[in-house]
């Protein structure tokens, strides 16, 4: 990302400026025009209720689809094909306890292993990289068509220490190797997985089916549904709730195809990856920016196809409550750093003459709106909502709106309780079976823990997004800070 370009800086400032502008304007209005502030709050509250009900309905539909397609034998549905699956695992500090289950999951997949090529992409700067690579190679070399270990050198010119830089290095190494083996780029379907990603047995069958049947397979990304089931029974309530909510958000996004963007572990055409010159090596949000790169490359004719199979990842947590909050906060802030896609996308739009203007405006607005809403919603609902009543003075409190504000807000927000019940019910349905040694009592805990939601909203609702946008606006760029994951708690 160019830092010194004034146009670029302006675009970086816009999201934070809008978010802070809305918040500060509302705070100011609460003092000087409490009635106007109250009216805006009511409009926002009502919008939020409608939005919550709408999104929960989408979640129900997505869940129904996931449930319906769970037992499909995708491999059987796939026609004969010559596609190879190239799976890259960018690794930094993750140890064997994380990588081994991920590779085991692929090994146990319901898909021919002679069509699967694994690339374990290590960072050269990790002192354990070579030893871990050697152990894994000895265990898994014979299980797949090819198994490669790559070691990304530290400090390459123009690079930041990001996952994208490592993945790009690995993909380039893989290309050389594949071409040497006579495998063409267009015959390779790439999956870039976080190190803790354990795929569903049907994943590659489902992916191949959709790739083969897609009208434009190279102009599509393929997004599985991320769930955090690997250690969900062991994780503390706070972390578990946050990650279940993240899974649900992704399932909802999968229903909104026109806004759908790749997230975390996903797949795409290897040819497309090569054509768009791989992942950016200096941006943190590699998982989403790769979509926007392809979108710009194909002049807006690029999409994400949701795959209704799950990939399971680890919930990041610690044995200390405060540490768990910190880990979760940092992870959400890194996700919110996806706001760096906004200047990237607008710059791309400005340099493009082929994408229809309406499409540019719509996609740019969606991206901006998503991040701004993320940064302000909890602040408005929890902090600004009561301000007119507190600071409006006697006059405001004698007004009908002064009296009605808290009552109507309370009533409207009670509607969200119904949606919470749906979320609780669905969270039970996506749970893996209870492991031996975990008490039945945990089932009750997992329902009761939903009472923590207001507390979570307070901490992780808007703050990480506001934090990320403020950093971007101030030009204090975030380094890639991988979420520490371990089968043993941190």
């Amino acid at each position: 990302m160019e830092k010194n370009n004034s146009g670029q800086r302006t675009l970086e400032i816009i999201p934070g400026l809008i978010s802070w502008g809305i918040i500060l304007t509302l705070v100011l209005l609460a003092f000087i025009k409490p009635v106007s502030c109250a009216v805006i709050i009511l409009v926002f509250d009502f919008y939020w209720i409608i939005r919550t009900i709408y999104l929960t309905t989408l979640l129900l539909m997505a869940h129904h689809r996931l449930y319906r397609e769970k037992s499909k034998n995708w491999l059987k549905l796939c026609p004969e094909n010559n596609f190879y699956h190239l799976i890259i695992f960018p690794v930094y500090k993750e140890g064997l306890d994380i990588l081994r289950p991920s590779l085991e999951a692929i090994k146990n997949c319901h898909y021919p292993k002679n069509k699967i090529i694994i690339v374990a992409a290590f960072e050269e700067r990790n002192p354990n990289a070579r030893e871990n690579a050697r152990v894994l190679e000895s265990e898994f070399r014979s299980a797949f068509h090819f198994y490669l270990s790559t070691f990304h050198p530290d400090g390459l010119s123009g690079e930041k220490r990001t996952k994208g830089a490592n993945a790009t290095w690995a993909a380039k190494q893989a290309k050389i190797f594949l071409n040497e083996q006579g495998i063409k780029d267009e015959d390779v379907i790439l999956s870039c997985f976080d190190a803790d990603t354990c795929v569903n047995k049907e994943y590659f069958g489902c992916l191949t089916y959709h790739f083969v049947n897609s009208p434009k397979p190279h102009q599509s990304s393929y997004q599985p549904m991320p769930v955090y089931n690997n250690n969900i029974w062991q994780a503390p309530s706070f972390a578990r709730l946050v990650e279940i909510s993240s899974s649900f958000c992704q399932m909802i996004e999968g229903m909104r195809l026109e806004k759908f963007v790749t997230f975390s572990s996903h797949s795409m055409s290897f040819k497309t990856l090569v054509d768009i010159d791989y992942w950016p090596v200096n941006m943190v949000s590699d998982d989403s920016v790769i979509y926007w790169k392809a979108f710009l490359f194909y002049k807006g004719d690029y999409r994400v196809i949701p795959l209704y199979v799950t990939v399971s990842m680890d919930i990041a947590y610690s044995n200390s409550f405060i540490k768990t909050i910190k880990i979760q906060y940092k992870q959400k802030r890194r996700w919110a750093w996806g706001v760096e896609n906004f200047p990237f996308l607008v710059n791309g739009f400005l340099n493009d003459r082929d994408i229809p203007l309406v499409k540019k405006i719509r996609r740019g607005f969606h991206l901006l709106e998503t991040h701004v809403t993320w940064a302000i919603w909890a602040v408005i609902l929890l902090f600004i909502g009561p301000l007119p009543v507190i600071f409006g003075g006697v006059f405001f409190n004698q007004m009908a709106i002064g009296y009605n504000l808290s009552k109507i807000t309370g009533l409207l927000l009670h509607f969200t309780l119904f949606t919470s019940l749906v979320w609780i019910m669905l969270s039970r349905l996506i749970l893996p079976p209870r492991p031996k040694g975990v008490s039945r009592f945990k089932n009750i805990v997992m329902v009761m823990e939903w009472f923590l939601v207001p507390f979570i909203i307070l901490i992780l609702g808007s703050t990480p997004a506001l934090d990320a946008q403020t950093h971007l606006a101030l030009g204090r760029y975030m380094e890639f800070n991988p979420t520490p994951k371990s089968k043993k708690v941190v």
Partner: protein
Amino acid sequence: MLNAQRIRGVLFFLSVAVFFIGLPFILSFALGYKFNPRTFKFTQTGLISIKTHPQGAHVYLDSKLLNEKTPVTISELLPGLYSVRLELEDYYPWSMQVNVEPRRVTRIEKVILFSTRPNVKQLNQRNASFFYFDEEKKNIYYFNREESIIYESDLEGEKFKEASVLPDTFKGVPKGLKLSPDKEKAVVFNSDQVCILYLSLKGSLLYGHPPFVLSYPGQKIIQVFWHSDNYHLFLVTDKNIAVVEANPKPNKVNLVNLNSGPAGLFYDKDKDILYFSDYQMGTDGVIYENIYKLELSGKSYIINNEVKSRLNGKE
């Protein structure tokens, strides 16, 4: 998937429609407007908020019984004068004329409904001629004139017991009872006598003598206060303010001479300051009524030490 997208499209437009149709009604209601479906116009209204203690009172608005009971908010009222009547069985009714203003809330939120059958409970088990209420210990001390005994009970009349007996030398009708700050002693006084009683064994051990009476014939004792040292007493009579020690042979020091019995008295027990009123003739021959402040904390430290050393000696 296409079908799902079609359903989603319908849902989206349905949500947008609900938002834009519902929003004017929510906002107009919040702002105090009422929609008239006949005229398709919004009319300004006001509302009345009623809260009572106890809750659950029936509400009559212009003599019409409403369905809800208190606490209740009556909304969408056209501006004007309304009569509000609140009724609850076994409680006195409450009524008021209320003026409802447009877009305003009229709050009737501090209504206490008083019972027609007040909850009165007798606390004493012996005749009580007067009582002293101890806020800290949550106790009541009352004096039985026939037996010359001070009884003690908690605020429910339970834990009843005899606290102390007045000596025979105390004559006449007691006027007041005061507990020392440490709750070990009590002073009972009449017009010219002061009796010191011990409320616990510790109290009598501390001073080494039984209850005793101090007599001040020729004076009219108006009020007695304990000093914070639990040892000195301030006697306010119609002639002076004096300090005496709480022992059978006390020193008595006249602190202030008064021109008349003070009309007002207040003792700040935290700071040992006595506020009192008195008449004073000015140099112009006119009688002025003044309020005075008398600081009494000077000797307390020394006296306290004396008391402590005595206590240590006993132990």
